[in-house]
């Protein structure tokens, strides 16, 4: 269940130097890979970039060709009602199930009236179960490779 409910995320290590983020975006752009969601966690010296892209394999190939270290992990796309208290409702369902959110970041586009977030949980299976039980949509769409799972 959790496999089907999750998407591939690419994690890229980058030093905090001018132009590194641009280099990543350009590499993906030239390979015809679209960025669907992105988050950058940074420290004073380095950053960890997390991306959901339209084609994970192509994206990975483009990044490693440019010399970046990249790895793949899974995140869960969750639809959150775009209204006051929407995210709180989702998080409340997770809290009740005793699931921790490690991080989350939004997709750039979503269904009308909803925002989609990429979630990373400490227990994905339990999280997806709790979300579905609470009637919250865990949507796998807009990523070709993930939709085949």
């Amino acid at each position: 269940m959790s496999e089907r409910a999750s998407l591939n995320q690419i994690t890229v290590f980058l030093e905090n130097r001018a132009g590194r983020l641009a280099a990543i975006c350009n590499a993906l752009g030239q390979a015809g890979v679209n960025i669907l969601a992105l988050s950058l966690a940074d420290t004073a010296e380095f950053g960890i970039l997390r991306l959901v892209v339209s084609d994970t394999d192509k994206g990975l190939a483009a990044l490693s060709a440019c010399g970046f270290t990249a790895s793949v992990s899974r995140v869960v796309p969750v639809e959150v009602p775009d209204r006051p208290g929407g995210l709180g409702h989702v998080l409340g369902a997770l809290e009740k199930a005793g699931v921790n959110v490690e991080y989350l970041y939004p997709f750039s586009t979503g269904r009308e009236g909803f925002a989609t977030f990429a979630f990373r949980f400490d227990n994905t299976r339990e999280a997806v179960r709790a979300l579905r039980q609470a009637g919250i949509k865990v949507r796998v769409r807009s990523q070709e490779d993930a939709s085949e799972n």
Partner: protein
Amino acid sequence: MEIWNREQECISLSRLREVQLERLRATVARCAELVPFYRERLRAAKLSASDISCLEDLARFPFTTAADLEAAYPYGLLSVRVEEVASAHPVWTLDGRPCLAAYTRRDLDAWAEISARLLTMAGVTRQSVVQVAFGQGMLAEAFGLHLGVERIGARLVPAAEGDKRRVLQLISDLGVTHLACTPRFAIEVIQAAQAGRRRLRGLRLKAGILGGEPWSERTRQRIESALGVETYDHYGPPEILPGVAAECRMRDGLHIFEDHVLVEVVDSETGRPLPDGAGGELVLTTLTIEGSPVLRYRTGLRTSIIRHPCACGRTFARMGRVTSLGGRALVIRGTVVLADQIETILRESAGQVPVYRIVRDPEAVAEDLELLVEVNESLLSDAMRNLRNLETHVRDRFLREMSLTVRVRFVEPGSLPRVSRPEERIVDAG
């Protein structure tokens, strides 16, 4: 400034050579007779004290290496009975293994003498208050300086590296005139004072007696201008005798106490002696030590010898600052750091040895070392805390095992130079 022992330190060069020759013959004879290691070594080389008719004849004798000292650990190089050892100092050599420097009462007397000379060069008198603040890598040096302070009759304030603010407090409260520590620690004291908005000038502090690691002129200027003091360098391999060379007020090289050690500089590849002024490996032979005398010890450090007379009046030759021979190890605060140790820590913290580089930069004084680690795919995860945990783990181990602080910097793959030997990953920016 005074000279502690004018008779010896300003001895005529011809008289010095006579004294050295006599003491060298006695040392070789002693080694051949009383130390089994040297007895066999000299027998195999068909050499004895009678083969020494001038100082240059020493070049025919075999070297002693750090490996020899380690093999002899603990008491294999003694030329006296173990009962006669008054003080035994374990030392970690540049190979990272222990050896033992053993001194008799008479040796301690010689050690006190050279320490008194060294301290006098930095202006220490009976009226001085000397704070000796060294860490665990510098215990033998601290011990030697204690002997010297006592010999001069100055006041001793023993302290330890560690709490900078406490050291600073003592400097102020006790009217410390001379601070003996590593250059790195002197800078930390300055930083602690600046952070606490404490005045550094106007203290009674006159001089810094610094050693235990290579340091640059820039570091000297930084310390001198912040503290309003003069600084003096000293050197001596702790496995032989710490403080056998020290700077006088001219501060143009370190005078070697040549009545206690014989100095040579050799080509580190061929082992052939080099002329004065040429850079090569420093080789020392003890002339007065009876506990564990050492013939032609290869220090693994690079320097050159200056013979022309010094304006201070001392006739002893001087040596330039020592630098590492070729990255086998780094010496920081008297502690030896080897590629092996770093790789063990990385392997145990990260489960692998990634491409890394470790740099000792005397100017970047916030941390002792900088460890650059290339992030490869198996080190990388989507969670920030994996790299954070690795960083914390590495820092803890350096602190616990070597009492050194390290800054871990993660870099992109391909940013560090590819090398063939692990030693090349060790960079001494000093």
